[in-house]
């Protein structure tokens, strides 16, 4: 897996970005910098805007106000970004076939595809399921396959939207281990989670969102030991943020 495309994609800078859908404000004047380095973890209650932020950083949603740049460019053509959705959609083909599809999308030559597929499947522990129809994999296996498919695009940044939300502890551990490995290889990981424990386990940087606004940003240790804002304190304490 190659690394150093970061220069074309990072940092991702949100500058007073608002995203609306009709009358509803999903993101409200978000200013944030996603820099290379350790994983950035988005936390916050449901409806806080975590998914919208990820989609906007991925280029799937457009800001209605403000500006977002990738390595200083507005909507560059050559970013290496990939995203794993909360409920990934599997193509009606085998696990290996799904990865091959992604490889074709980035123009990997046919003769190289087989080796890369094997490598990716091994990285997520699915090599024995290569020929299984993807839609017949378990939820956890599909999540891992979606991860492998995203990695096939050779991203510099990988977004994950609540990747362990529907998984049991074993599945969760499997995904977290893979995410840690990906991060260690130099790919910037930006993920959202409901699970404060997971945030502590994976994060370098924590971003707390609430009602579309960034409430607090901090290094993981600093955030959990000494939260600066009242909302952060209440959220860490387990209170419902309304």
């Amino acid at each position, binding site marked *: 897996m190659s690394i150093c495309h970061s220069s074309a994609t990072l940092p991702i800078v949100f500058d007073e970005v608002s995203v609306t859908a009709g009358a509803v404000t999903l993101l409200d004047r978000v200013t944030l910098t996603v820099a290379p380095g350790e994983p950035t973890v988005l936390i916050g209650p449901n409806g806080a805007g975590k998914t919208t932020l990820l989609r906007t950083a*991925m280029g*799937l949603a457009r800001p209605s106000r403000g500006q977002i740049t990738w390595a200083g460019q507005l909507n560059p053509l050559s970013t290496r*970004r*990939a*995203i794993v*959705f909360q409920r*990934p*959609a599997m*193509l*009606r*083909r*085998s696990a290996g076939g799904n990865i091959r*599809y*992604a490889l074709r*999308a980035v123009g990997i030559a046919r003769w190289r595809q087989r080796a890369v597929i094997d490598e990716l499947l091994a990285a997520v522990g699915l090599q024995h399921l290569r020929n*299984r*129809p*993807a*839609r*017949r994999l378990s939820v956890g296996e599909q999540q891992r396959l979606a991860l492998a498919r995203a990695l096939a*695009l050779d991203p510099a940044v990988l977004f994950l939207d609540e990747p362990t939300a529907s998984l049991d502890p074993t599945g969760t551990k499997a995904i977290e281990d893979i995410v840690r490995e990906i991060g260690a290889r130099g790919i910037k990981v930006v993920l959202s989670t409901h699970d404060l424990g997971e945030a502590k386990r994976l994060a370098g940087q924590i971003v707390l969102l609430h009602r579309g606004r960034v409430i607090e940003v901090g290094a993981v240790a600093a955030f959990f030991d000494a939260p600066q804002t009242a909302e952060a304190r209440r959220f860490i304490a387990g209170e419902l943020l309304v």
Partner: protein
Amino acid sequence: MPDDVTALQLVLNADPTLLAIVRLSLIVSLSAVCLAALIAVPLGALIALTRFPGRETANVVLNAMMGLPPVVVGLAVYLLLSRSGPLGGWGLLFTPMAMILAQTILVMPIIGALTRQTVEDLWTEYRDELTSMNVGPLGRMATLIWEGRFSLVTALLAGFGRAAAEVGAVIIVGGNIEGFTRTMTTAIALETSKGDLPLAVGLGLVLIAIVIVVNALAWTARRAGERLAG
């Protein structure tokens, strides 16, 4: 058709006239479905995936044309292909090619409308994934058509059913020429008008049997495919 024979006897003796009629029916209807698919599947996918002004109207028109009366299509194609018509120079009237043309026109709306619906539903399912993988418009069409292949087979079967069952178009543009443009449905129409009802009914049952066989083959192929791809 020989006199005083039942359709069953013709089938059991593999009567060459009957075989020629069945073969022509299959060639005409299957070719029409293939040609219609070639045009209507990409077109349906295109309509499903593209925003353009008048899209809703196009949808309504496409759906409405599923109910085009075959005899009207036949008449229109006849006027086109007649020697006194604009395409008369092609000399296609009263040939199997004219029949294929007429049935292609008849069948395109069904295949197009069903493809559009299938691809539209699949686009809802795969929109995020395909967009995030930067798949371009042609790639999206190809991917979703392939993803929807089982539903599309059903659409093709619906088209085949319509083509194999109709008589209005093929009898007008084909002329029901014995040994040349006589199909199962036109033969049934002829035997009915001659008063040989038992033979007509028998031929009708043979036609139904053939349509069932085609559907069964398609179903088998679909099941095998589904088992492989989930």
